C-alpha cells in the first residue's frame, strides 16, 4: 500500500503535524539545555509543496544559510534539514563557545559545533517520535553546508524526486528568548514511509 504526498487529507496532515509537535517539543528542551537559554518553538506545520516551490520557502533560493542535513534510518526513512540564517548561526556559535569564532562560519570549530546542535535536535526529535509511534528511527551522522538555501534544498530533494513531484515538509521554528537565534527544522519523510508512519500513529 502506498500513499501519495499530494493526496494526503487534512486528518492525515493534522496527525503528521502532531508527530512534529511531539518531536519538536523534545528537541526544544534538549536545545535549551545545551545553550542554557530559553527556547521557544512554533506550532509545527505540515506542508505539501510541489518540488519546484520548496527552494523558495525560506526567503528566497539565494539566501545564505547554514544547513545541517541528516538522513533518517530505521522503520521509516527520510531527511532532516536544520537551517539557520547567517546571523543566527553566528549567535549560536557565540552562545555555545562563549566567544565569537575568528574564522567565522567557515571555520572547522564553528561547523562542527553547528553540526552537533543539528545532531542533538534530530536525535531528540526522532527519539520522541520513536516512542510516540512505537517505531525504531535513528538519524545518520550530520553533514553541513554554508551556501544558498536553494542549492541546499534542491539537493536534498533529489532522492525524493525520483518517486514524487511533491514533498511533505513538517516544519518547526526554534527561537531563543530574544530572537537572536532563529532556526527552522524540517522533517521530510520518504514517500514509501508515509503509510508506515500514519498507520503507526493510528491514522489510515
Amino acid at each position, binding site marked *: 500500500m502506498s500513499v501519495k504526498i499530494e493526496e494526503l487529507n487534512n486528518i492525515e496532515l493534522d496527525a503528521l503535524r502532531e508527530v512534529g509537535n511531539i518531536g519538536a517539543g523534545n528537541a526544544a528542551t534538549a536545545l535549551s539545555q545545551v545553550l542554557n537559554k530559553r527556547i521557544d518553538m512554533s506550532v509545527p506545520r505540515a506542508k505539501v509543496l510541489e*518540488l*519546484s*516551490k*520548496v*527552494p523558495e520557502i525560506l526567503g*528566497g*533560493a*539565494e539566501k*545564505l544559510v547554514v*544547513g545541517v*542535513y541528516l538522513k533518517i534510518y530505521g522503520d521509516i526513512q527520510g531527511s532532516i534539514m536544520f537551517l539557520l540564517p547567517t546571523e543566527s548561526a553566528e549567535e549560536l556559535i557565540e552562545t555555545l563557545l562563549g566567544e565569537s569564532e575568528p574564522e567565522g562560519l*567557515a571555520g572547522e570549530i564553528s561547523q562542527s559545533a553547528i553540526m552537533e546542535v543539528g545532531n542533538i535536535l534530530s536525535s531528540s526529535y526522532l527519539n520522541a517520535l520513536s516512542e510516540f509511534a512505537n517505531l525504531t528511527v535513528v538519524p*545518520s*551522522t550530520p*553533514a*553541513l*553546508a554554508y*551556501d*544558498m*538555501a*536553494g*542549492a*541546499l*534544498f*534542491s*539537493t*536534498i*530533494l*533529489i*532522492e525524493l*524526486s*525520483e518517486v514524487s*513531484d511533491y514533498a511533505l515538509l513538517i516544519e518547526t521554528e526554534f527561537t531563543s528568548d530574544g530572537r537572536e537565534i532563529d532556526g527552522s527544522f524540517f522533517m521530510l519523510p520518504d514517500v514509501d514511509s508515509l503509510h508506515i508512519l500514519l498507520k503507526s500513529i493510528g491514522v489510515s
Partner: protein
Amino acid sequence: MNASIKIGIADYKVSKSPDRLVTLGLGSCVGITMYDQINKIGGLAHIMLPKNNNPEKRSPKFADDAIEDMLGELLKMGVRTRNIQTKIIGGAQMFSFAGANNKKSVGHRNVVAVKQILEELKFRIKAEDTGGTFGRTIELNLENGELRVKTIGHGEKII
C-alpha cells in the same frame, strides 16, 4: 522589453534576445543552456535526475526529457541545430557525509548523464562549470550568449 525569465527546479524555458534566462541556487542539480548565436534564441533547463525510466510520464526533472523537449521547442522557434552552443553548470556536492564516495554523488552522476545525452545528440559542449562543493546561480544573456555564473564565496565569472 528586456525580461528576466526565472526557471525553477525541474523545469526549462526558452526565449529570444534581449531576454535573460535565470535559475537560482543550482546545487547538485545541473543547468543546461542551449543558444543559437545567429538567431539569438536560447533555452535553459534545471534538471534534478539523470534519466527517466518511465517513458509514459515525461518530466523536465529528468535530463533526457528536459533536453529533448527544450530542443524541440527551440527548433519550433526557428533555431538551427548546427548553430546551437551548449553549456552545463552545477552538479556540486553540497553535503559530504563521512565515508561517502564522491564519484557516486548525485551531482557527479547528473553531470555525467547530461554530457552523455548531449554527446548522443552530437552537441559539443562549449563551456562548463561543474563539480565543487558550492551552489551556483546562472544567467544566460540571449543578446550575446554570455552565461554569468554567480556563487557565494567562490567568485563570479562569465563562461
